[in-house]
């Protein structure tokens, strides 16, 4: 098992270096000059521009800037934001829990609904439930997130007035950050109604963010279950006299979950992309919105380091998924 983990870790090294190049290069390919954007509408004299560029190191050759970035990265220095002057890592850590909270609730929602729906659709193949759920999944999968988010806001917040439009909690409540997770902090604060407010703010964004993963997970679970239900070992379990619930829930599902877990892991990456849109729609103060704002300001250090942190996160999650895969599939573990 340890060798399995080490070999997986080794794979991460070239991937990580690749990401540093992309993260560094990507933001510099974008047209726009961060120094000019910092100066704003007042403009800036060519001398001052040159002076600032030199100060920020933008006048040096690009490869030199890259190795400088890499060097500082290995010392744990992700740089400071050009706009706020604060360390990128501090900003990231402040905003990160909001995104994690949203992402976790979304992936939980997607898994807890997607897997049972997929299983049921498979064992009731061809039934109305199968047809309706799979059509809904196809619609969900094809839905543009921003449009879907706006529709939900118009209906649930605008017409029905059930949920708030944006933010993480009502402005009426104020309490210190303990965990950074609003649901937990609001509970800890003991303030009446705080938790309900946090929850009501979370519902729409997490539904929007969960939509595509939910559709993908439901469809993947269904097809994996259909494949597994035809296997000899499922017939053996039946021949042993095991109940339908045990045949499906233990013998078939355990095997069907192998590809589904990979799918869920891959959805984490999709989720990060979705979070950028969702957070923008709902003004959710997480790293998605932070990245969008920083790209608009050409805040090079924030964009390149933020991208790196997000990519690193996705890599860690994928590693965990690989390890889970090994746990759930003994044939991989014993290779």
């Amino acid at each position, binding site marked *: 098992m340890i060798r399995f983990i080490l070999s997986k870790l080794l794979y991460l090294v070239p991937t990580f270096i690749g990401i540093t190049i992309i993260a560094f290069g990507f933001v510099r390919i974008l047209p726009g000059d961060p120094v000019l954007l910092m100066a704003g509408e007042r403009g800036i004299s060519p001398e001052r521009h040159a002076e600032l560029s030199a100060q920020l190191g933008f006048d040096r050759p690009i490869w030199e800037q890259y190795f400088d970035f890499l060097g500082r990265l290995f010392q744990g220095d992700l740089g400071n934001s050009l706009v706020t002057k604060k360390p990128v890592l501090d900003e990231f850590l402040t905003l990160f829990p909001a995104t994690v909270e949203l992402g976790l609730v979304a992936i939980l929602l997607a898994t807890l609904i997607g897997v049972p729906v997929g299983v049921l659709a498979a064992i009731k193949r061809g039934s109305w439930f199968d047809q309706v759920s799979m059509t809904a999944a196809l619609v969900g999968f094809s839905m543009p997130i921003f449009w879907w988010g706006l529709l939900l806001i118009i209906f649930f917040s605008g017409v029905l007035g059930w949920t708030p439009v944006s933010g993480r909690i009502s402005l009426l409540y104020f309490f210190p950050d303990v965990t950074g997770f609003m649901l937990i902090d609001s509970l800890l604060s003991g303030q009446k109604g705080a938790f309900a407010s946090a929850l009501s703010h979370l519902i729409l964004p997490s539904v929007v963010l969960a939509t595509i993963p939910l559709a993908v997970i439901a469809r993947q679970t269904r097809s994996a279950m259909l494949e597994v239900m035809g*296997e*000899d*070992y499922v*017939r*053996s*379990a*039946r*021949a*042993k*006299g*095991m*109940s339908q619930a*045990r045949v499906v829930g233990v*013998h078939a599902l*355990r*095997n069907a979950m*192998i590809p589904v877990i990979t799918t869920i892991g891959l959805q984490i990456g999709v989720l990060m992309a979705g979070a950028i849109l969702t957070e923008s729609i709902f003004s959710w103060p997480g790293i998605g919105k932070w990245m969008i704002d920083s790209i608009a300001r050409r805040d090079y250090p924030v964009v390149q380091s933020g991208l790196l942190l997000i990519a690193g996160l996705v890599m860690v999650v994928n590693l965990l998924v690989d390890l889970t895969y090994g746990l*759930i*599939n*003994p*044939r991989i573990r*014993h290779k």
Partner: protein
Amino acid sequence: MALLEIRNLTVRFETSAGAFTAVDAVDVSVDGREVLAIVGESGSGKSVSMLAVMGLLPDTATVTADAMIYDGRDLLAMPVAERQKLIGREITMIFQEPIASLNPSFTVGFQIEEVLRFNMGMDRKAARRRAIELFDAVGIPDPQTKLDAYPHQMSGGQCQRVMIAMAIASNPRLLIADEPTTALDVTIQKQILDLLMDLQERHGMALILITHDMGVVAETADRVIVQYKGRKMEEADVLNLFENPQHAYTRALLSALPENATGDRLSTVADFMAAEAIQ
């Protein structure tokens, strides 16, 4: 009275090309402690008729029979729950592909202990002890360690031994073995057959052996049913069948054995069928 008696069993499958009759008006009966072989080529419906007894056919299959009496009770007439109590306990089955028949995600120990716990009501510890005994009984070396192995860590022969151990775990009265040796090496085939015959004798259970191997039939069976294209062609005691085959198809099967070859070319079933013009 026979332990299992099936009269006029018909199994039809709904396919996109229309209905297909896999088993056509077949009668099967087997006494307790008897070894019945059902022989026939692929597609003769021999497995399907036994899967029908076990209730393991897919939804696309329609099973009809005048009677399917097990130990005085009609399997088709009894409630599903009651039938399920018989399947896996009194009537068990092993299959052709032992490795594929075991769940790859669970240890073989889990899979046999499951039978003991759910069908025999044992607790974990008792199930473990009994599983070790069963593994020992089917000739798996070092049973204690092997219980923690996954199917992919065992050979085909060992997996079939595990399947057999699971099948006899609940002391069944009828064991159906569907081509139990087809996927195995010749040397292992012999060991598995010997094991099955030994267990059949010791446990005093009835054994229905589905096979296409006439050699296996000669060695093991008391009585033989020959099936072709879903129909029963002939039923006879094993000695009678080999010495005095009544039906052209049986003669065809026997003459297709390599040891009965005369001349340069091995005769095939088709040769006989053409010559005697039977369908």
